[in-house]
């Protein structure tokens, strides 16, 4: 986990590399999220101060776009594609299977910060439908049964790291 001090330093560095222009708001939010994994409230306050705009407007923009997250992600962030091709090939069943197997709902991170679950509109790999992405690795042509199998190595890795 990143300490508060590290986070605040990272934000300060990002701010110092940008001009005070309104058009930089989204790039700033993106860079902070890339660096910290999510957008902490303090970071958004700092961006607001830097761009001399109301914090509520920063919050408005951040919550408008799908990309921004306000809670830290799990170590094995799992993305479910909910695009048309994936839907037709049973994407809903894949999502249900993941929620069941991980015991979390979309948008949540589990208690040990291991798994988090996100749904996206389309990752553009329609010929491999239905797909999920676990920790940046694409798992193609899934069925609810194969979801269980795909998760096993990650669950084992998480367990062995804990013990």
């Amino acid at each position, binding site marked *: 986990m990143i300490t508060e001090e590290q986070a605040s330093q990272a934000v300060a560095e990002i701010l110092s590399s940008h001009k005070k222009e309104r058009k930089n708001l989204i*790039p700033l939010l993106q860079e902070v999220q890339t660096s910290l994994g999510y957008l902490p409230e303090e970071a958004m306050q700092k961006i607001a101060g830097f761009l001399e705009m109301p914090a509520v407007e920063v919050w408005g923009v951040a919550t408008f776009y*799908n990309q921004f997250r306000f809670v830290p992600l799990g170590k094995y962030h799992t993305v479910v594609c909910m695009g*048309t091709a994936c839907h*037709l090939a049973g994407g809903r069943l894949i999502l249900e299977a993941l929620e069941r197997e991980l015991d979390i709902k979309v948008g949540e991170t589990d208690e040990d910060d291991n798994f988090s679950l996100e749904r996206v509109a389309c990752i553009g790999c329609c010929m491999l439908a239905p797909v999920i992405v676990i920790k940046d690795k694409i798992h193609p042509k899934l*069925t609810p049964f194969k979801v269980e199998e795909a998760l096993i190595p990650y669950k084992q890795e998480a367990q062995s790291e804990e013990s």
Partner: protein
Amino acid sequence: MTFEEISNKAKSEWEALQKGSYILVGTATCGRAAGALDVVDAFKKELTRQGLEVPIIQVGCIELCYADPFVTISKPDSLRVVYHNVTPEIVPRLVEGYVAGDDPCLELALGTLEGGGDEGVYIPELPRFEHELRLILGRCGYIDPENINHYIANGGYSGLEKALKMPPAKIIGELKKSGLRGRGGAGFPTHRKWELCHKARSTPKYVICNADEGDPGAFMDRVILESDPHQIIEGMIIAGYAIGAEQGYIYIRAEYPLAIERIQIALKQAKELGFLGDNILGGDFGFHIEIAAGAGAFVSGEETALIAAVEGKMSTPRSRPPYPAELGLWNKPTLLNNVKTFAYVPLVIERGGDWFASIGTEGSKGTAVFTLAGKVANSGLAEVPMGTTLSELIYDIGGGIAKDKQFKAVQIGGPSGGCLPETLLDIPIDYDSLREAGSMMGSGGMIVMDEDNCMVDVARFFLDFSTRESCGKCTMCRLGTLQMLRILEDITAGRGKIEDIDLLLALAEDVKIGSLCGLGKTAPNPVLTTLRYFRDEYEAHVLEKRCPARVCPELTVYYILPDKCDRACEHCVLTCPTEAIKGGKGEVKIIDQEKCSKCGTCLEVCPPEYNAVAKLSPVSLLPSPHLSEKRARK
């Protein structure tokens, strides 16, 4: 350097490459998803092991995504051979066989790019290429997208060179002659946008490329950006010159990190060679391009919403007029075109408007790029002249329906488009024919559906998407689509009433009229077209509580056929994620319908020789003991 010098240098680099052997690996996002980077590593390892020095070039996508990863081996004085579904395991064979030796390993190949003799499949003679005409996809997969010289050696930037010697009005005149219409979906004549911007008096002016490809199931812009990025940059520079702009932005969605990376590299290289910067090719005209990475909002595809996003605001549309050509980015004249529109521009300038206008139909000129996905056998991209029919695209290029299933519908244009039935497969693909049929060209996403897809569920899916993506500005789009979604949820859950269908139609009209931008105006299209062509499916859901495709979970049950179940087998019992299947060894297995999550795992794992799991709809088809068991427990 003059353009001639730059071009000569690029050509000699390209020719030098052709004099030796080289290996192309398609590492666009689709190739990577199929394991292309592992293939690259395997080649590196194997070449080192065998002590060979052969360049491996990572290229984009050759659009036959169904058979990724692709590798092309090129040797001087030999046939270029394209291999498909390449895995690291077969790499040593390819290196041994064709890189080092003379065995082209044709049994592993899709075919050859030259020849046509008895050397197996000659790729240009595949049935799909009878229909395809690759204008903007032509270089994709054959040039290094991260090497500007490959682009220049294959005709790149000569359109710009020619354009800079033409007066802007003549460039716009060529566009007018070409009949090019915007490839973002609406089909607005490109020259009219350019002319309005050219005539606008206010300065500075801006050029924006819309690369916010948001339609789920469409990925052609991504492929072009990843495979041949310079043609977009070239198109934008010509646009800047024609309208008098000095600054351009490419708005790319953040979900496309590789596209952003390759555009960044392309911009840097274009600048180094003097195609971008203050004095382009030594002249007076200067143009700069920046990337604006989108943060994920479907509505940003609408031009005024996209402009708001580049300004760093919430991406909400505003009413038009005034059009962006008059009041756009920071209230200045702004030209906004789609990725593909810009990609056509260098070609139109180089070969002339008349040439472009000779391709296509009366009202729709040139080619159209489609992504084919869903239940089609060969998913991927295709570029065909306007006027090609849907059936040619789906059957001749796409190879028909996968797994010998029955075609049901084709959905064109994503959440804004419509589903067309088999009876309309002979209509030509052009802006006007598709609109007449209730669909639209849209960005070019084409999803094929088969007998296993429920059309009510498809309508619900698209509306769910539009509801989530509605920015909330217009009441009818925000709340009207939500009401429509609730009605569709009722119908798919078996709670529908017959009068709901008329209510849906009425609401659809209200949402269309009551919305400012394309998102709301077109959101009802999937519902309207499925109602127009597949009303019987809606009625089956409402009146018989039956889902004809057996998709909607509330109207479907799984049932294990007692006379087919092999009592000794326990596959279903052991794999059921909710432990809903009872029955020990030697007993017939029974599904506890209360516990069943309808995931279909039992159907998937039941060995084909038994084939004992059936999916039934309506639920009342379930033989009575199961029902009575359920009632008894209640």
